[in-house]
């Protein structure tokens, strides 16, 4: 039997390399109009009066008065307006859209619009909680009572910018009585739902298509719905084609980022044992809630990382501040929590004088253990085997000892982590209800009809590989075009490490159906719908039960060297071991792992983004520094198979997992090098200096 993991040529590689693939800014249409967004100049203010200039023929100003539906971007909470009406709640909030044939003139119109504001006092502190979630496991009061001491630390994590190299963009046009939007997007059906709602239209009045996506990392999950609404209102009104491509600065100042977080952890201790932990999490949503509630819940569920702690009290808040709204970013709340818990377990070990590795091992979750939400880790956990591999390949134990004694600033750090695959809780069954189709034409060409987007993670290749392997036909006979909502069913958004495990699982089932019923030279179509395994039980109100159907696991080890004079950190080498069930393509997973890990490492020591007075300070790649080829360490990545019964060929989620361990690994390596406790990221030279001078 062929091993599915064996690497094949990526189907889209050559077209991308040679510049043939069309990204959204490469689309050209006759008489395409340009659009520029009119934005708030204040962080919090009432809009008193708008004075619009007299417009030349062919120029338009689109604002809230043009909205046929209700003025909200349809998401989980109806709180973010598409265009501000009477008030603005963050600097650069969209107020209107100017559209016209000449870009310079459009810009002039934008600049000549006068808006009178009544300025109000903005909030940037974590004081205005709009969502609170809390849950317990075991008996925290008893743990508290029985404990002899308490260990408490507070950890802080910053903004992180996705920095996909292709900025946000979309075009809209009117064709066959449909408002059609083509964009750099992760979730065609999220965009469609938002536009149907803002135009208060029939479903079939809206068509959404994907262009080749130049990186997304969550940044093109919910944010594009906002751009789509702006464009759709314009296209609906003027029935012309309009292009809205953000420049880098507009993208960085106004689009969603990773939520900054403050995480306070307290352990109740007795005889060097952790009796219980209480966690307190606050995340900064920015001006509107958006997906923040879901981000918070993923963070809270990850409260104990890979460890089994019997008694828990977990509490979290989403705070509203007058800053740019934050949103989805690879990991979705987990990177913040995993950073905190990984540092905490280490800090506890140091405080009680136990080897961190020993303490980690004694709390490492095992199969059938109870999760943080009193669910069950049903599948085998192979972390001990992964650990052995990681320690051996990196020579961790020797280096750990030696670097401590050497009079150099060398360090090595290790993180352990997991990531719940798919939507949190029963989301797949209650909110998404994925549908996939597989269609065979009379020439026996098979088309995969799903809404999943290839944004670089390789699903164009892996999905086809699954189908061609099951049907035992050449991969060239399997077609998978960019999704178009006129043609594909809603298989759900391309998020939450669900695409291969959930959507790929359904595609595999459809392929098996087709195989069993195959009739040569006949048109055939098979549909599969998601069914939740009956043993998965989740009580959303009380955070109780199985938060995820399956978990992927990982270990990162990172080695650093710090300059004695400048405290500049060099990341020398990295080792990772992952359990993603079964890789559908080994090279694709390792490539994703390298990228994810570097993004996580960058978050841990390099990437600085701050808002001052509600204004994002880093507006371009000149100011927001991400790792370059010179900063990138050699990464050794190993995969160990641990097939998940319900995934296609045993595959689980992989996309987000590879990011979440990077920050704690690099932070612990730096902590090891300097011998001081690190409690926030990024660990910059300035922060190291501050730690070193606090003798």
């Amino acid at each position: 039997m062929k091993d599915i993991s064996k690497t094949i040529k990526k189907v889209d590689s050559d077209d991308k390399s040679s510049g043939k693939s069309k990204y959204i800014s490469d689309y050209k249409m006759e008489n395409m109009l340009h659009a520029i967004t009119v934005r708030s100049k204040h962080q919090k203010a009432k809009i008193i009066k708008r004075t619009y200039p007299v417009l030349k023929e062919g120029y338009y100003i689109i604002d809230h008065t043009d909205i046929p539906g209700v003025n909200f971007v349809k998401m989980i909470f109806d709180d973010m307006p598409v265009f501000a009406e009477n008030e603005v709640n963050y600097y650069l909030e969209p107020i209107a859209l100017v559209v016209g044939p000449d870009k310079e003139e459009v810009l002039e119109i934008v600049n000549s619009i006068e808006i009178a504001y009544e300025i109000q006092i903005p909030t940037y502190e974590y004081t205005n909680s709009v969502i609170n979630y809390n849950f317990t496991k075991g008996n925290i009061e008893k743990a508290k009572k029985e404990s002899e001491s308490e260990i408490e630390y507070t950890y802080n994590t910053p903004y992180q910018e996705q920095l996909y190299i292709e900025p946000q963009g979309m075009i809209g046009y009117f064709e066959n009585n449909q408002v059609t939007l083509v964009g750099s997007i992760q979730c065609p059906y999220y965009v469609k739902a938002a536009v149907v709602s803002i135009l208060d239209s029939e479903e079939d009045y809206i068509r959404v298509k994907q262009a080749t996506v130049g990186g997304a990392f969550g940044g093109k999950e919910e944010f594009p719905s906002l751009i789509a609404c702006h464009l759709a209102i314009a296209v609906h009104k003027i029935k012309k084609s309009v292009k809205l491509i953000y420049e880098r600065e507009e993208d960085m100042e106004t689009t969603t980022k990773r939520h900054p977080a403050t995480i306070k952890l307290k352990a109740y201790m007795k005889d060097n044992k952790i009796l219980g932990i209480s966690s307190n999490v606050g995340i900064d949503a920015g001006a509107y809630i958006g997906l923040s509630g879901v981000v918070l819940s993923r963070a809270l569920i990850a409260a104990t990382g890979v460890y089994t702690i019997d008694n828990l009290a977990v509490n979290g808040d989403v705070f509203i501040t007058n800053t740019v709204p934050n949103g989805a970013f690879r990991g979705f709340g987990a990177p913040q929590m995993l950073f905190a818990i990984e540092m905490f377990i280490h800090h506890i070990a140091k405080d009680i004088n136990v080897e961190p590795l020993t303490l980690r091992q004694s709390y490492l979750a095992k199969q059938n253990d109870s999760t943080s939400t009193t669910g069950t880790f049903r599948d085998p956990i192979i972390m001990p085997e992964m650990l052995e591999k990681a320690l051996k390949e990196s020579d961790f134990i020797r280096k750990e000892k030696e670097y401590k004694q050497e009079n150099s600033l060398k360090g090595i750090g290790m993180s352990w982590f997991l990531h719940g695959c798919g939507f949190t809780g029963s989301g797949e069954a209650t909110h998404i209800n994925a549908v996939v189709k597989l269609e065979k034409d009379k020439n026996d060409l098979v088309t995969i009809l799903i809404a999943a987007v290839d944004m670089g993670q390789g699903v164009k290749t892996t999905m086809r590989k699954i189908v061609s392997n099951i049907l035992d036909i050449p991969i060239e006979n399997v077609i998978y075009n960019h999704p178009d909502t006129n043609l594909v069913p809603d298989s759900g958004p391309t998020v939450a490490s669900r695409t291969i495990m959930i959507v790929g699982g359904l595609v595999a089932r459809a392929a098996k159906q087709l195989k069993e019923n195959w009739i040569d030279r006949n048109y055939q179509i098979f549909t599969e719908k998601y069914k939740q395994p009956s043993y998965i039980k989740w009580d959303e109100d009380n955070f109780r039960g199985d938060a995820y159907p399956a978990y992927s696991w990982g270990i990162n080890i990172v080695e650093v060297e710090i300059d004695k004079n400048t405290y500049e950190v060099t990341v020398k080498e990295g080792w990772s071991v992952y359990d993603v069930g079964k890789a559908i393509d080994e090279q694709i997973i390792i490539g994703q792992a390298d990228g994810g890990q570097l993004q996580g490492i960058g978050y841990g020591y390099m990437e600085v983004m701050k808002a001052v007075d509600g204004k994002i300070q880093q507006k371009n790649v000149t100011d927001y520094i991400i790792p370059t080829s010179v900063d990138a360490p050699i990464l050794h990545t190993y995969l160990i198979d641990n097939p998940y019964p319900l995934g296609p060929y045993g595959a689980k989620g992989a996309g987000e997992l590879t990011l979440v361990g990077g920050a704690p690994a690099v932070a612990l390596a730096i902590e090891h090098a300097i011998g001081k406790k690190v409690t926030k990221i990024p660990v910059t030279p300035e922060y190291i200096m501050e730690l070193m001078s606090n003798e």
Partner: protein
Amino acid sequence: MSKITFILNNKVVSTTQHPTVRLIDVLREEFDYTGVKEGCGEGECGACSVLLNDRLVNSCLVPLGTVHDQKIMTIEGLSETPQGKLLIESYSKEGAVQCGFCTPGMLMASHSLLNEIPNPTDLEIKIGLSGNLCRCTGYNMIVNAVRRASKEGVGLW
């Protein structure tokens, strides 16, 4: 109106656009070479890399006027050459292409590096590509791809 004439992917072309217009805009909009990507518009990401007389430049920083009578090569030109073809194949074999938005620029930088150093060390490769950002790959596979091209392309550069 004055004309600016230059050699674009081995063909003589001319344009009447203003000399201060950015080269990237002329290449993408007038000549339809959309393999030249805009990632930052500030000379920091390298997505818009092209060769100006065999030297790697960021076309978002080059005013059209300066290319008069000069030679420009974009990814569309490079991919027709033996060097370009080998680079495309090496990138594919090593899995160095994910979203692909950085890739045309990376290939231009790889070619320019190999022109200067046909047999680069890993560090030389990293330095040669350090003006080109990639957010997807973590660069390891890209470095491998350039190493492979240099090994398999003996005599090409």
